C-alpha cells in the first residue's frame, strides 16, 4: 500500500507515520511491548502507541487518562466529547486527530455534515446552539486558556449543559491540546493513494 502525506482536513481514514522508530522496530524491552499490547492488539493505529511506548511509564498514564476522558462512564453524551475533540484538533491543526474524531462524531450523531462544516470552514461556520457553545468554548480553551472566565461557561449552561457535562467538554478539549501536540510533533498524517 502506498500513501501520500495528507495536508488538508478530512473525515477519510488516515494513517499516522512516526518520525521515530517504534518499539516494534527496535530491540524493545518486555515492558515496552507489554505497554502497547495492553492498549491494542490491532495493527491499525498501533504505530502511535508503539512510538509512545519508547517511554512506557508515561504511555501507561497517558492512555489511562485519555481513555477515561473520552470513553469513561457517566457525564454527558459521548458526541459532546468528540465534538470538543474535533474543534480543538481543527484549530491546533492536527489533521490526523481531527479525522478520527470528526468521523467518530459523525457516527454518533448519524450525519456527516456538521463535522464536515467544522473541518471545511472552521469554528466560525454555522452550528446549532449546543454545538455552537461546545465549539466556542473548546476553541478558546485551546487557543487562549489564560483568558477563560466564568463568562465563557455561561453559554454552555444556556445551551443546557450541566456541570458534569461541562466538565466533560473541558476535559476533552484539554486532552486534545495534549494529543494534538503529541501526534503533530512526532509524526505525520498519511492517506492511501
Amino acid at each position, binding site marked *: 500500500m502506498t500513501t501520500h502525506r495528507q495536508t488538508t482536513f478530512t473525515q477519510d481514514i488516515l494513517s499516522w507515520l512516526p*518520525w*521515530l*522508530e517504534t518499539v516494534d522496530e*527496535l530491540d524493545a524491552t518486555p515492558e515496552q511491548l507489554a505497554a502497547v499490547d495492553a492498549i491494542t492488539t490491532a495493527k491499525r493505529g498501533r504505530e502511535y502507541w508503539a*512510538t*509512545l511506548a*519508547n*517511554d512506557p*511509564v*508515561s*504511555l*501507561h*498514564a*497517558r492512555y*489511562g*487518562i485519555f481513555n*477515561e*476522558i473520552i470513553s*469513561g462512564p*457517566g*457525564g454527558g453524551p459521548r458526541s459532546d466529547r468528540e465534538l470538543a475533540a474535533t474543534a480543538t484538533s481543527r484549530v*491546533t*491543526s*492536527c489533521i490526523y486527530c481531527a479525522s478520527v474524531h470528526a468521523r467518530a462524531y459523525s457516527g454518533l450523531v448519524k450525519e456527516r455534515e456538521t463535522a464536515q462544516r467544522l473541518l471545511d470552514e472552521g469554528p466560525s461556520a454555522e452550528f446549532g446552539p449546543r454545538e455552537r457553545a461546545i465549539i466556542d468554548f473548546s476553541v478558546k*480553551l*485551546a487557543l487562549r*486558556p*489564560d483568558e*477563560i*472566565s*466564568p463568562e*465563557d*461557561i*455561561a453559554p454552555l*449552561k444556556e445551551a443546557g449543559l450541566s*456541570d*458534569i457535562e*461541562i*466538565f466533560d467538554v*473541558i*476535559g476533552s*478539549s*484539554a*486532552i486534545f*491540546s*495534549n*494529543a*494534538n*501536540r*503529541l501526534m*503533530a*510533533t*512526532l509524526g*505525520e498524517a498519511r492517506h492511501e493513494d
Partner: protein
Amino acid sequence: MTTQPDITFEIGGFADNPTIVALRDEKPQIFTWIQTYYNATVSPEDPGTISLAERALIAQRAAELIPSPVLDNWYGALLEERGGVADITSPRIQALLDRVALVNENPDRSTKEDVQKLRDAGFSQQDIIAVSQLIAFVHYQARLLAGLRALGAAS
C-alpha cells in the same frame, strides 16, 4: 473523600469549592489518572536521563509560554526545590527549551528535522518521548485548571 494526594486540588485550591468537589465525587478516576500522569512525567520514580530538575524546568517554561501563571509559579518553585539547572545556556538545555517553544507555538509546522535536532543534541528515543509527554501533560493540565477555575466560579 480521598486521602491520596491530588495534584489538581493542591495546585487549583479547589478543596472548598463545592462544584469542583462534586465533579471529583462523580468522576474520581479522572483525578486519579491526572495524579498518575503527573507522577509519570514530572516526578517519575526512575527519571532516566532527563533529570528531575530538567523536568521542572521544561514544565515551567511550557507553563510560561502557554501561558498558565498558576503552573508557571508551581513549576518555578519545584525547579528551585530541585536545585535548579546549572547551565541554562548549554546546548542540551537550549535544545530542550527550543522544543518546548516549538510544541507550544507551531505544533502543526514541526517536522522530522525538528526531531533530528533532539537526536543531534544527544537525546535517545526514550528521552524524546519522555520530554514530549511532559510538555503535552502541562498543556493538558493548564487547560484543565483554567476550565475548572472558571466553572467553579460560575456556579
